[in-house]
């Protein structure tokens, strides 16, 4: 494994600390991020680089990224290259981050409706609520990769949706990685979306890559105000040889609603960590996720849902299809705090293994400290259902058509929950095409 910055055999901790020193010395950051950078690096030192025995990375081989921490060189990209990643709903409302840096020249904001402010870079930290939240969450961050993101934060976006603003069409955040031949470049995008009280926001986050190898290590924060709603699609369409780690922190206030979907097109290593806090009564969190993996692709989900107040609802449904030697894992825990009476929570993980060498791991957990709650969790890992297969064949469909139809149908029930038609169509076409390619 080659490295631009690490000496052979150097521990990742030392490499990261050394890079951070240079990062500070070279003044690569805005002074508005400097206290956050300090909090991030000290949190990183506390947490250390995780090995395979780390509870949070049981299914994820972090060795793959031990020398992937150099800053990307300047990526050349033009508008035409960007446009192919833009969904049709968002042609006039998309924000582009390239290697973690906001690119005003490539972004289009003319279609952004209502009172929505876009704040770039360190200026986002001028908002006291944002600063307080970002610094305190970084201080208590338990995901070392999110702390690395904060330690090296130099740019980012704040999307501030004013109270009572109704967004009829979505804003797309396009996180592009330039990539290169060496597996050493790492970008650290950050986006915070603040949805004011009684506002309705729609956001699509899409990851994409230009060339070969890169490690995109992003953090996204969503603060959803009282009575507000947020519709989110989180779509990972990275290059196959990319590594994508994301941390999503979501705070839901009184009577707020979150409806999210996630689709992974498959990379060498993708990890999504979701931390959700249902902070006040009546908050509702719904999340569906689908991935179709082949060859040696890997997608890992790690979710922690904290019910901190009474009468909140959470529902998660994951579906993963694994073929060849691919791997998926879902490690999901719902934590119901003592005061969170009348919690209603469902968690379901369904995995479909199409080959004997594919792996699908599931770890659904519940920790309940309240006594009047309704919580379910379920998990299935299986192959194609023989009864369903026979049913289709008994109606004259061939074995291979029946199998394709069944694997497609397995994915389709999640794909159809995606709120945005062009995203739904693209996810459907791409994932379902992958299943056709696997047809015998």
């Amino acid at each position, binding site marked *: 494994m080659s490295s631009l910055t690490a000496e052979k055999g150097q521990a990742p901790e030392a490499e990261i600390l050394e890079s951070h020193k240079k990062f500070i010395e070279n003044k690569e950051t805005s002074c508005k991020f400097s206290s956050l950078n300090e909090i991030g690096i000290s949190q990183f030192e506390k947490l250390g680089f995780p090995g395979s025995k780390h509870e949070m990375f049981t299914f994820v081989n972090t060795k793959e990224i031990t020398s992937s921490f150099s800053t990307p060189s300047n990526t050349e990209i033009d508008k035409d290259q960007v446009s192919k990643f833009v969904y049709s709903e968002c042609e006039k409302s998309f924000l582009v981050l390239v290697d973690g840096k906001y690119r005003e020249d490539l972004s289009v904001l003319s279609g952004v409706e209502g009172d929505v402010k876009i704040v770039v870079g360190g200026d986002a930290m001028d908002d006291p609520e944002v600063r307080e939240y970002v610094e305190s969450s970084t201080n208590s961050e338990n995901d070392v990769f999110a702390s690395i993101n904060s330690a090296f934060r130099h740019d980012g976006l704040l999307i501030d949706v004013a109270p009572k603003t109704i967004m009829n069409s979505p804003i797309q955040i396009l996180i592009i990685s330039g990539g290169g031949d060496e597996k050493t470049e790492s970008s650290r995008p950050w986006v915070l979306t603040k949805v004011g009280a009684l506002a309705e926001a729609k956001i699509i986050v899409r990851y994409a890559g230009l060339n070969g190898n890169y490690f995109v290590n992003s953090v996204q924060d969503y603060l959803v105000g009282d009575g507000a709603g947020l519709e989110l699609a989180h779509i990972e369409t990275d290059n196959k040889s990319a590594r994508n780690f994301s941390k999503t922190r979501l705070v839901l206030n009184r009577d707020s609603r979150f409806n999210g979907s996630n689709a992974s097109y498959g990379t060498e290593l993708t990890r999504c960590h979701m931390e959700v806090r249902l902070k006040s009564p009546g908050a509702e969190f719904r999340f569906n996720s689908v991935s179709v993996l082949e060859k040696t692709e890997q997608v890992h989900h790690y979710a922690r849902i904290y019910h901190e107040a009474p009468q909140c609802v959470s529902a998660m449904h994951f579906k993963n299809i694994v073929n060849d030697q691919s791997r998926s894992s879902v490690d999901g825990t719902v934590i119901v705090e003592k005061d969170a009476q009348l919690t209603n929570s469902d968690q379901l993980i369904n995995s479909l293994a199409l080959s004997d060498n594919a792996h699908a791991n599931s770890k659904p957990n519940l920790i309940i400290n309240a006594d009047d709650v309704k919580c379910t969790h379920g998990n299935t890992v299986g192959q194609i259902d023989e009864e369903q297969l026979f049913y289709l064949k*008994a109606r004259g469909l061939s074995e291979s058509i029946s199998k394709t139809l069944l694997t497609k*149908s397995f994915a389709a029930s999640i794909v159809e929950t995606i709120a945005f038609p062009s995203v739904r169509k693209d996810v459907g076409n791409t994932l379902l095409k992958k299943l056709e390619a696997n047809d015998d």
Partner: protein
Amino acid sequence: MLEIKDLRGGFEGNEIVKGISLNVNPGEIHAIMGPNGSGKSTLSKILAGHPIYEATGGTVTYKGKDLLDMDPEERALEGVFLGFQYPVEIPGVNNAEFLRMSYNALLVHKGEEEIDPLDFDEILDEKMKTVDMDSKYKDRFLNDGFSGGEKKKNEILQMAVLEPSLAILDETDSGLDIDALKTVANGVNRLFNKDRALIVITHYQRLLDYIKPHFVHVFSDGKIVKTGGKELALDLEKNGYDQYVVSEN
């Protein structure tokens, strides 16, 4: 059309069908009755080619061909239809699209061209009326969340679309209220003609008030223990199966 000779079979090494012989000709309706566990459903699954069920002896000839040698999809394309006792739910597969794929597979098998979605929609609308099915079920996922009655109607709808030569209806009446039963029976009767044959498997005589069989066979312990006309069904209703049931000892 169908000649079953001394058929034996079951699943996981258990012989459940223990030597059945039955001839079914075009224009005939055969009812198979019998208590639970007598092998009625096993026979239907062996005939349709369910992979778990295996024929261990005897022969089945359908239109001169060895039926047991065919894959399930081949049997379907050759005109054998199994109406499932418990239709399988397949979330994610659109009901109308599935029916069109199935219909097209049949057309291709016959050497004809596939039909386009719009033309098929017309056929489907027409067929749905015959089984009194709301058009909203076209866009639903296959049997997903359907009531028991709607699932059985959907089976009959599939039969109406595919127009099989030989239909085997496995307890199509179970779990239906009387209105749904009448609708299903009407749908079946409408399809039946002198070129087609029907095997109706049922636990209750009630269905045979609406679908009139030419022959009634009583199953017990994997064998046909009595064959008669439709009056046999009435006798069973009145006097029960016990008189025909073969003791295992």
